[in-house]
């Protein structure tokens, strides 16, 4: 984090590295901010997830603000799951007065998947219309065309899932997101470089920065679980076997080795990486070192 913003770095063609903070279930945020400190000099920005997996947690807006206070650059994730168009626009304005520029616009998981499955699913807007609305706020007007006192400035991002089937449906949506104002993409976790290369070839015509997703494998069981339950994730058998063969104390080492292999392969394919450590923040410096950063 060297004075230039994520947007400026991507524009300048720098290979960027972002990581992620999943806010806690509760208010005990200090340990998470301390973990982020380990990575401060290593990564360009931190995503803050928005009630990930539809589980009630501390909010992404508040944690993004705390990151700014401590000298980090946040990427404020916003989903359409819980807020209607009034609340989303208001939170975008709030983000702006807190100095938050990077907004990652997502549709969001369905509440059925989380710990409040009885909740009303909102989805008043979707990822595409949220991008459009954020863009409209930047012109000094709300989505109804009413004038705002002052203009917020955002750097808008969106997500894509390279292993999604049918991929054409995903690519068409990606095209809509770009038209709606997305300036960069983060992807679902990548485990197959060959598939990822195919995806990058398909989207090359859009000439937009893509940050390849990295999720650190913790166990063979986690890999199998993701293969069965997480959309767009396919961990190949040889990685599952590497994890299964490793003794418990060796697992972080093997996981780092796998992640580094993927990152090295991605360096020439995309414009950056987004690491989702899911609690293994302490190993991220080693992953980066093993990847040649």
């Amino acid at each position, binding site marked *: 984090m060297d004075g230039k913003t994520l947007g400026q770095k991507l524009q300048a063609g720098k290979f960027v590295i972002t990581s992620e903070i999943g806010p806690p279930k509760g208010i005990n945020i200090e340990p998470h901010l301390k973990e982020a400190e380990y990575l401060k000099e290593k990564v360009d920005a931190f995503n803050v997830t928005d009630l990930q997996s539809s589980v009630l947690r501390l909010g992404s807006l508040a944690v993004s603000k705390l990151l700014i206070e401590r000298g980090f650059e946040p990427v404020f994730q916003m989903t359409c799951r819980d807020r209607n168009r009034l609340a989303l626009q208001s939170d975008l304005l709030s983000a702006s007065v807190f100095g938050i520029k990077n907004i990652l616009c997502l*549709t969001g998981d369905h509440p059925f998947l989380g710990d409040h499955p009885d909740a009303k*699913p909102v*989805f008043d807007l*979707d990822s595409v*219309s949220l991008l459009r609305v954020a863009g409209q706020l930047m012109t000094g007007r709300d989505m109804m065309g009413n004038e705002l006192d002052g203009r917020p400035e955002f750097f808008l991002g969106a997500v894509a899932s390279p292993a999604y089937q049918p991929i054409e449906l*995903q690519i068409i949506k990606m095209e*809509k997101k770009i*038209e709606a104002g997305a300036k960069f993409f983060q992807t679902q976790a990548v485990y197959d470089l060959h598939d990822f290369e195919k995806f990058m070839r398909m989207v090359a015509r859009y000439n937009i920065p893509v940050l390849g997703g990295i999720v650190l494998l913790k166990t063979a069981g986690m890999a199998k679980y993701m293969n069965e339950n*997480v959309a767009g994730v396919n961990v190949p058998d040889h990685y599952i076997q590497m994890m299964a063969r490793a003794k418990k104390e060796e697992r972080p080492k093997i996981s780092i080795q796998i992640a580094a292999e993927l990152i090295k392969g991605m360096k020439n394919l995309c414009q950056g990486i987004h690491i989702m450590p899911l609690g293994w923040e302490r190993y991220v410096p080693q992953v980066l070192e093993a990847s040649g950063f």
Partner: protein
Amino acid sequence: MLYTEMKSFEEIRMCVDSEKDLFLLGCGGCADVCKTADEKTISEIEAKLKEAGKNITGKLTVDFMCSKTLLAKRVARYQQLLDNASGIIVFACGIGIQCAAAILDKSVYPATNTLSLGGFQGLWPGEERCGQCGTCYLGITGGICPITFCAKELVNGACGGAKDGKCEIKTDKECGWILIYERLRKIQRLDLLKQTQNPRNFKKMEPDSELRKTIHFAIDK
């Protein structure tokens, strides 16, 4: 009683912009009563379409299009005229439009918006459901409703949550947007997926007080 309103002619015309030969299909059930599928309405739209340079290959009214079996039987006699058309404009509620799309494998274009299914305990024995959103999207989704088939009621395409074609909320539920994608690919209209839809207008779901006063809204008034 369920209630439908006509889309503006301009909206219908824009939907069928790329079509030359059209067939007009109306429902002789509730839509007829609402005057969105009566002889006069269909003839008026027919005249305007002809004026706009469209060729009308034929027209037909079927009683209660919500019964797919009945509908399939009735349209079979008009197969030639239907084959001559590249698109079908349907004057019916959201169920009728989806039934037509399911049977005909052609682009269907709603002439109507469904505002309310009211207390109607009607015939629809199929899996099609109408969300009474008041902004019928069936013309751009290959006749599969994104409001009732997508768990998030998305109007701009699939979220990233589907796995093996199934919705993220239930492994035995098809992803509505993958169904829409497959239908549009089959009828070679994937171009429709690329149009960005505006956020929904939820105001349309609150029936107008003028409408509430009419016999079309509540038959016992």
